[in-house]
């Protein structure tokens, strides 16, 4: 599977072509925004029904449908982001080829100075010097393999939740409706968690691409391979992502658990904190994404500095 996914992000295309990911991603995003407008309309309609005698059931139905569509719009937007991230990965590998070809011409043709392998300190943090490009880290192997399945599982869960939301809408005020409400929320937020995990894995794959690509360029030019060690932001990113995903899996289990309650008051009590709990999970996943992006920025800063060194000194 890793090989298949690697082929998706390293296609053999001309370096100047537009790969289409940008247009597809933005297209999916626009469709999601249209659904978002429908959700906003449903919200305004639902608010107008509050307090109207005899409209309680309609209000419940509108809210259930709006919840389902809202989460669907959210997952479509995240899918759009995932498509664009795949496009960035593709571009990173095309960039590797461009830099490799160009640096060979741009660098001064001097003897490669003797160098010591091992750990060094740079202005961007700890790095290693080696003769060969470093092997893929286990976390990067996992990321390169898992982003695809996570994305599929996430989208499937959210759409399954959307169908269940229609059962919820058709049974407002009954025990079947309560069960369907719990399933909808559990499934859709599990799906959201999977899609955010997929985005996190794609960001880790981008970091992996920068690391491997940078090593590949330096090795091809016969230069000492300088690679940035994993920064603390990257370690914290992995921790936050795992915590967030665990919370989403646990909330799903707990939503299934509350469907076994016969006591509506107990059901309402559990629901009152399960909502914020599932949002906490998404929040932690998103916080991890900030750290992943900050790590990408740092890796780029290091790479540009290394490219400049090679252009100026040939070493």
């Amino acid at each position, binding site marked *: 599977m890793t090989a298949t996914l690697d082929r998706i992000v390293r296609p053999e295309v001309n*370096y*100047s072509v537009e*790969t289409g990911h*940008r247009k597809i*991603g*933005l297209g999916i*995003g*626009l469709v*999601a*925004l249209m659904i*978002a407008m429908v*959700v*906003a309309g449903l*919200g*305004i309609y*639902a*608010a107008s029904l*509050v*307090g109207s005698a005899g409209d309680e059931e309609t209000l419940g139905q509108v809210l259930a449908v709006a919840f389902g569509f809202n989460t669907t719009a*959210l997952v479509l*937007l*995240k899918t*759009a*982001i995932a498509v*664009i991230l795949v*496009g*960035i990965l593709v*571009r990173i590998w*095309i*960039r590797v080829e*461009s*830099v490799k*070809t*160009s*640096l060979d*011409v*741009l660098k001064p043709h001097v003897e490669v100075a003797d160098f010591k392998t091992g750990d060094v300190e740079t202005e961007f943090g700890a790095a290693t010097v080696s003769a060969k490009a470093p092997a893929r880290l286990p976390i990067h192997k996992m990321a390169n393999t898992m982003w695809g399945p996570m994305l599929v599982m996430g989208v499937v869960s959210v759409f399954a939740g959307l169908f269940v939301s229609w059962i919820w809408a058709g049974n407002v005020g009954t025990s079947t409706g309560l069960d369907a409400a719990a399933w909808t929320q559990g499934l859709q937020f599990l799906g959201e968690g999977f899609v955010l995990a997929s985005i996190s894995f794609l960001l880790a794959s981008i970091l992996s691409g920068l690391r491997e690509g940078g090593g590949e360029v330096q090795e091809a030019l016969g230069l000492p391979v300088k690679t940035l060690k994993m920064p603390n932001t990257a370690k914290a990113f992995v921790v936050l992502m795992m915590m967030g995903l665990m919370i989403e899996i646990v909330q799903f289990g707990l939503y299934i658990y509350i469907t076994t309650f016969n006591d509506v008051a107990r059901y309402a*009590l559990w629901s*009152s*904190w399960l909502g*914020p709990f599932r*949002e*906490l999970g998404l*929040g*932690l996943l*998103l*916080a991890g*994404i*900030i*750290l992943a*992006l*900050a790590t990408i*920025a740092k890796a*780029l*800063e290091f790479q*540009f500095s290394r*490219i*400049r060194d090679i*252009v*100026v000194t040939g070493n």
Partner: protein
Amino acid sequence: MTTATYEFNTQTSAKALDANVPQKAGRTLWAPAFAMSLMGFAGGMILAIVKATAIADGDAVLATSLDNYGIAAMFFGFMMVFTGISFAIARILGEFRVGGGQTQEAAGSEVKTLKMPATAKAFIGLMAMAMMILMGAVIGHVVVGIQINAETLSLVNAEQWDIWLETARRLAVQLYLFAITLGLATIIYVIRYQSIRIREIAEET
């Protein structure tokens, strides 16, 4: 023969350009936004637990009031997390701008820097719009919570406000996500330009 970079809208200079204002802001502010997001999430979760206790005690007014404070805290966290992501994307774009310029300068070439693409402008505009809507919703929840606690707002009106504010929150989150999509799409555009530009410089040498 390389594809010339003339299909891109660039500005030419002798020296590498510095990061622009949004990119500098991104570099400075992503970390505070990250820290504030974690505080918001923690606060939201604590208030949810307190609210559950109020529900168990049968205090509906306090529970509804705490519900609004909890949502305000949680969505303050979301506002900060999406802002942090946007700032981190701006920082990445800044690294490409500065690093790409310095590489061209080091190669002894004239420095061609991309002008801000339409996707980047839309990214900033939508992010600001989303932030204002979400900030409004967060403030709205606090005001509603205070009014419920002071018993100047009926529970029916509180429910109506809850639905309006939820609609605003949802729209804001969706706008934020679309803004982020635009920011990431700008990165694809920038990398494509740089891949072409570096080959162009090598050919000129």
